[in-house]
């Protein structure tokens, strides 16, 4: 459902994404892993049409994201990094706006909003302005917005960031419950999450894919069978916080 071919993205002379190719099928939950600045968010921004690729192609459900941007965007649900939402709206107003833009009317819109609200547990804050909500609720408003139109493709940038352990658990079960008939990409740097929800994990470092396989296959790469060790052995640590030996 998602086909990415030789994707490159440059910002001036800096190459954020340096040639990524991926295919994500229906039923797959792909976990996008990598250190900060590895190019996870940039890749997601290109899949959803927010940034244009410098090179390469992206096709979502058969729609090229550059040639048929609106068609592609209408089959994608996207939770951007930090879950931005209009602070002066209430969740209900915000979701109604999204429903209208997604072409849902009257009863269909109401049904979709009710379902998304129930799935993300927003009932108690529906009438409060988004700016007054806690980080966890804001994130869930973003989630509700992304799943509102029951999209076949779901892209979520750090969906559990800022949630407490119970909420994390709830979001993971939600993702698992939706995974059967969707293609899902989530980015995370919480390694346990990969094991908990992903059917496949891709580790990227400095804009390139360094590992691609099921969580079990990745674990097999390390003698200790720990995700942390796999992650550390495949990615480059941040130069500034690296502790040099003997210092």
């Amino acid at each position, binding site marked *: 459902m998602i086909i990415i071919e030789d994707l490159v993205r440059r910002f001036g002379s800096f190459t954020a994404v340096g040639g990524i190719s991926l295919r994500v099928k229906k039923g797959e939950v792909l976990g996008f892993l990598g250190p900060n600045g590895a190019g996870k968010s940039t890749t997601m921004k290109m899949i959803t*049409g*927010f*940034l244009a690729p410098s090179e390469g192609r992206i096709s979502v459900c058969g729609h090229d994201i550059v040639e048929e941007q609106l068609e592609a965007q209408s089959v994608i649900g*996207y939770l*951007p990094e930090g879950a*931005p939402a209009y*602070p002066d709206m209430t969740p209900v107003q915000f979701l109604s706006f999204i429903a*209208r*833009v997604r072409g849902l009317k009257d009863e269909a819109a109401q049904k979709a909003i009710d379902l998304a609200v129930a799935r993300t547990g927003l009932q108690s804050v529906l009438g409060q302005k988004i700016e007054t909500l806690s980080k966890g609720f804001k994130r869930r408003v973003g989630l509700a917005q992304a799943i509102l139109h029951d999209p076949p493709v779901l892209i979520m940038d750090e969906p559990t960031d800022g949630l407490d352990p119970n909420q994390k658990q709830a979001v993971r079960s939600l993702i698992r419950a939706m995974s059967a008939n969707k293609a899902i990409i989530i980015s995370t740097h919480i390694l346990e999450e990969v094991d908990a929800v992903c059917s496949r994990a891709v580790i990227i470092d400095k804009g390139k894919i360094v590992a691609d396989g099921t969580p079990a296959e990745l674990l097999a790469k390390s003698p200790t069978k720990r995700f942390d060790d796999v992650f550390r052995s495949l990615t480059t640590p941040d130069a500034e916080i690296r502790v040099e030996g003997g210092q």
Partner: protein
Amino acid sequence: MSFWILTNAVFRREFAGYFATPVAYVFIVIFLLSMGAFTFYFGQFFQSGRAELDVFFGFHPWLYLFLIPAISMRLWAEEQKSGTIELLMTLPVPVTAAVTGKFLAAWVFSGIALLLTFPMWATVNFLGSPDNGVILAGYFGSWLMAGGYLAIGSCISAMTNNQVIAFVVSVVVCFMFTISGHNIVLDFFQAWAPVFIVNAISSFSFLTHFNAIMDGVIDLRDLVFFGSLIALSLFINSVVIDLKRAD
């Protein structure tokens, strides 16, 4: 989905946004107070002893110069600062629909502020028998001119994520459009520029076109001027937003 359905969705969200915060009320109160203060104190409305609103309309370009950029500065700068632009641009909404919807919301809002000056109209009708056709033309011309300022301001707001910069630059650009027909400006060019350039600069003047309408003569050329200025500004606005994808 059709362009206008999406434009309407953006329009409704934006328009409701003005009244969800104190912005609308503060703006309207300041707008009305300054309109009144200028007309009655500086314009010597009563002392003139004439039942007409020329003095009142005469101050509009100068008040708009500061008040309209105060509305337009947030149109795009705020979305870019808060990250909601990423949400908006990954929804299946054409950039032109988003630009048009936001502009129309701001324009209708400024129209409402303008309509609330109706006590002025009531006053002159109570005190004398003015030519209400001329007054109507004045209101229409004033609203058109507000649209011109707004479109320029919206375009400038798209170029920055800083509202202060958007405000200051908009005031300066709008000022140049306002006085470009004035002798101070034209003398500067007359010394060296060919006549057709001087005429072209002079024809961009908001004052010239507004004064023509204010006299009660709605000339097609003045309508075309404001109409095409708005269209051109919004077109550039869309291009600026679109270019950010490839930035």
